[in-house]
């Protein structure tokens, strides 16, 4: 046993509340934002540090319920996080009921799904909660039987005293346990003693999913509920002038048509308060189809926006964000980005003397990469239920980061924070899109206006043309090569609209004596947001494609060249801010090398490799591809992952497979074009998403086995897929690919 002595658990406190009719409920919360502790250090971004909370509920009839603190959007936290609790609680996992915790400001400190941080953040607090509850149950048994706690054992939800042949289940002990003071310094199992963590467990919600039960906000119903839809401008850079609803109001089932302003003038936006359009025309009626039809009859006039300034008050600071006027276009964006590549940019990092190295180089290779805006397109379109009354503001919402909604709801709806009640539903995908809860405020404003319960529904078109895209990016990689084929310097310069993706301290920083990284940004009125592995999803594709081409240029094996650079960076790291662990990076490359039989591959193998580190986990992929009738066929993908302790191998493998499929799809097909401010892809018949027949024929997932605390898998396996695919396609076609989506470039003669 090891003492749980991290700051987080020392300073945590547990509240115990007796339930009416017996049973106990343990709530826990942490003051972790005060702490520069190890959990904080594993967070992708220190500013993003959030707390986790959860519940254990035991009833006298021996039902054990574990509340999942983090909203579920498909990474299987409804299973893996309660597994952490139960590893220590030691209830009968097959009978444990898991339930999504509601958003509850007074009780909880934080609920956050994003940044692949759920595993890392839950690791000690959730096990500590389970251990604390188990200790209280054991103490209750010890008191009742008048025996020392040390003589008790716990297994499958039963506390036993062997010497006196007595036993009791958790339910029988729960009421007495709830009256005890919670211990503050519990011991946690050593990893080697885990009996649940590390075993493959099925999704706890699986049966409800395959039966089609009501799980999603889109499915939610409420007595007297009306349906609302909003009309937003047809283009970025446009706003509402006026509307005429005469015809729409004559349509059957229509209750009301009005306009709303989402954020009040001067509202200081919090970190996830992005919204594309601030003034919307809303149609409210009895049923979805009636509202869909009526809104076509609303005659709306739009006018161009002025350049505006917005205040973003987030992450402990405040900044102004310029939202320029104008109707932007993808072709113009490409020209602007190429122009920025020719201008001086912001220096992000410089090691040694890259200028001299480039001036003395025998050869310089320079390659420029670009990628378009991407739409998240979660399968469940955006929706939110709201019922605002004088007593309370009740929401049923699919939101990744409920904790950061409070400022938004309080300010823009004028509702005191303690009147907000929010049921958090399972989300039909998110990928970052549902971090931005403007739709919660919109639903609230609509309910306030019509004084009725209402569900706001976005159609697919509403969502896809509503911005919050992955930014569009460009980056140039440059290498100086001397007469003996040594790479003497690396230069990286890039940016994006409206933000860039150069991560100056990531590999290959640290492996080159002479290194420079520069960045720039171009403001835009097209709104962007976090998209599965923000920034990394582009920069990894460019970096890993460039390293491949560089290795080829200097006559080295691409996988071995990466290993060589990492070993160099480990032995003699250049600079002090390199944010990767070379050993763990090497381990995933070695593993993928072994499992893909890389060294013995045929000389003409159509095979590519890539590796990346982001969001605290390491991933490497080897992709095999063949071309058939001008279309790539992905024959096989072998993946090697290091995410520390693997909590639920079943879910973990599924996540990696999904990331591989998603990566291939976005790399080949993904892209949102803008013309004169208008998003050109409006639905799934225009925006191409990977389908069954385009998915890899086989995916093999391998994990590095180690004892590092677990880190996430939602994002890390995704970015290196792009580069591995591009490098394989080069082998299959002889064509290096620089601009996404790759299929467009492949088909260019």
């Amino acid at each position, binding site marked *: 046993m090891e003492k749980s002595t991290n700051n987080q658990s020392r300073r945590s406190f547990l509240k115990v509340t007796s339930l009416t009719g017996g049973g106990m409920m343990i709530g826990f919360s942490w003051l972790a934002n005060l702490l520069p502790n190890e959990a904080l250090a594993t967070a992708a971004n220190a500013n993003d540090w959030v707390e986790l909370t959860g519940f254990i509920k035991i009833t006298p009839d021996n039902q054990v319920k574990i509340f999942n603190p983090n909203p*579920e959007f498909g990474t299987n936290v409804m299973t893996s996080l309660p597994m952490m609790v139960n590893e220590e609680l030691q209830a009968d996992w097959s009978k444990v009921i898991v339930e999504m915790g509601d958003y509850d400001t007074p009780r909880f400190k934080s609920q956050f799904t994003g940044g692949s941080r759920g595993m890392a953040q839950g690791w000690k607090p959730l096990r500590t909660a389970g251990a604390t509850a188990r200790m209280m149950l054991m103490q209750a048994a010890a008191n009742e039987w008048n025996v020392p706690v040390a003589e008790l054992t716990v297994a499958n939800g039963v506390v036993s005293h062997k010497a006196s042949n007595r036993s009791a289940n958790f339910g029988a002990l729960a009421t007495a346990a709830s009256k005890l003071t919670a211990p503050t310094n519990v011991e946690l199992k050593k990893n080697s003693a885990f009996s649940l963590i590390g075993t493959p467990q099925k999704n706890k919600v699986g049966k409800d999913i395959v039966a089609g039960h009501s799980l999603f906000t889109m499915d939610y119903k409420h007595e007297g509920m009306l349906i609302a839809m909003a009309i937003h401008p047809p283009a970025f850079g446009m706003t509402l002038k006026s509307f005429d609803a005469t015809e729409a109001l004559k349509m059957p089932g229509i209750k009301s048509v009005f306009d709303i302003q989402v954020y009040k003038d001067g509202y200081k936006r919090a970190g996830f308060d992005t919204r594309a359009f601030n003034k919307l025309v809303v149609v409210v009626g009895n049923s979805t189809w009636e509202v869909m039809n009526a809104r076509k009859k609303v005659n709306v006039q739009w006018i161009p926006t002025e350049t505006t300034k917005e205040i973003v008050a987030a992450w402990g600071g405040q900044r102004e964000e310029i939202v320029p006027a104008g109707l932007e276009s993808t072709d113009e964006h490409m020209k602007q980005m190429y122009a920025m590549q020719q201008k001086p940019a912001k220096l992000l990092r410089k090691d040694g003397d890259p200028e001299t190295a480039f001036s003395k180089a025998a050869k310089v290779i320079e390659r420029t990469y670009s990628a378009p805006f991407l739409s998240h397109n979660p399968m469940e379109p955006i929706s939110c239920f709201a019922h605002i009354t004088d007593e309370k503001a009740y929401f049923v919402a699919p939101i990744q980061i409920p904790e950061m909604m409070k400022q938004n709801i309080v300010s823009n709806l004028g509702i005191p924070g303690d009147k907000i009640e929010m049921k958090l539903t399972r989300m039909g*995908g*998110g990928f970052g899109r549902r971090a931005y809860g403007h739709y919660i405020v919109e639903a609230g404003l609509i309910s306030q206006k019509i004084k009725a319960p209402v569900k706001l529904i976005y159609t*697919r078109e509403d969502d896809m043309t509503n911005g919050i895209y992955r930014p569009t990016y460009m980056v140039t990689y440059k290498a100086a090569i001397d007469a003996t084929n040594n790479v003497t310097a690396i230069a990286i310069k890039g940016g994006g609209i409206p933000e860039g993706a150069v991560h100056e301290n990531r590999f290959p920083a640290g492996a080159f004596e002479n290194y420079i990284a520069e960045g720039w940004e171009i403001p835009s009125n097209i709104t962007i947001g976090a998209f599965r592995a923000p920034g990394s999803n582009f920069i990894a594709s460019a970096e890993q494609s460039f390293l491949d081409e560089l290795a080829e240029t200097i006559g080295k094996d691409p996988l071995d060249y990466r290993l060589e650079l990492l070993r160099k960076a480990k032995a003699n790291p250049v600079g002090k801010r390199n944010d990767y662990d070379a050993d763990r990076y090497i381990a995933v490359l070695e593993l993928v090398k072994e499992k893909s039989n890389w060294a013995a591959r045929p000389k003409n193998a159509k095979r590519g490799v890539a590796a990346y580190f982001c969001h605290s986990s390491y991933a490497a992929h080897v992709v095999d591809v063949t071309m058939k009738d001008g279309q790539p066929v992905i024959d096989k993908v072998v993946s090697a992952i290091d995410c520390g302790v693997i909590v639920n191998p079943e879910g973990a493998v599924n996540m990696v497979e999904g990331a591989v499929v998603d990566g291939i799809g976005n790399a080949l097909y993904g892209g949102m074009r803008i013309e004169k401010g208008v998003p050109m892809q409006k639905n799934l018949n225009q925006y191409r998403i990977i389908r*069954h*027949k385009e998915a*890899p024929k086989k995916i093999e997932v391998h994990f590095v086995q180690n004892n590092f605390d677990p880190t996430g898998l939602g994002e890390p396996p995704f970015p290196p897929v792009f580069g591995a695919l591009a490098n394989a396609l080069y082998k299959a076609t002889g064509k290096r690919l620089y601009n996404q989506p790759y299929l467009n470039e492949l088909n260019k003669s």
Partner: protein
Amino acid sequence: MSKFNLKVNGKNHEVDVDPTTPVLWVLRDHLNLIGTKFGCGVGSCGACTIHLNGRALKSCQLPVAAVGTQPITTIEGVVEEVGEMHPVQKAWLELDVAQCGYCQTGQIMAAVALLKTKPNPTEEEIESAMSGNICRCGTYVRIKAAIQQAAKSSTK
């Protein structure tokens, strides 16, 4: 508004709706059968897949007026038909297919219809029959394996 008699999952229902209303919204809004999902509204994603006369069909593209006397089966009816979980649903659980889960009822409806006409589909037949159903989480590899497993278990 017009009245329509629909046979859904073996039961008769009368609804009074606009004749152009897609069956998707009749099921979801009027019959409270929410297992049939709204994904795109243009027949491109398959989240709304139902069976009409036993054949898989995208219910967002089917106006209620076009149904007539043809029987409709939804995911809720698939369970009722079999009396317990359908072999396809069981395979989905055994292979732990779902991630977010939103598209999976549509995927299952497409798979059930496929196995009715082709009890032992080849990989290519599965890929082809299932390519109208998008899974944004990318669970395709598991879906294919689950269909193969269901085929095996029902031909045993």
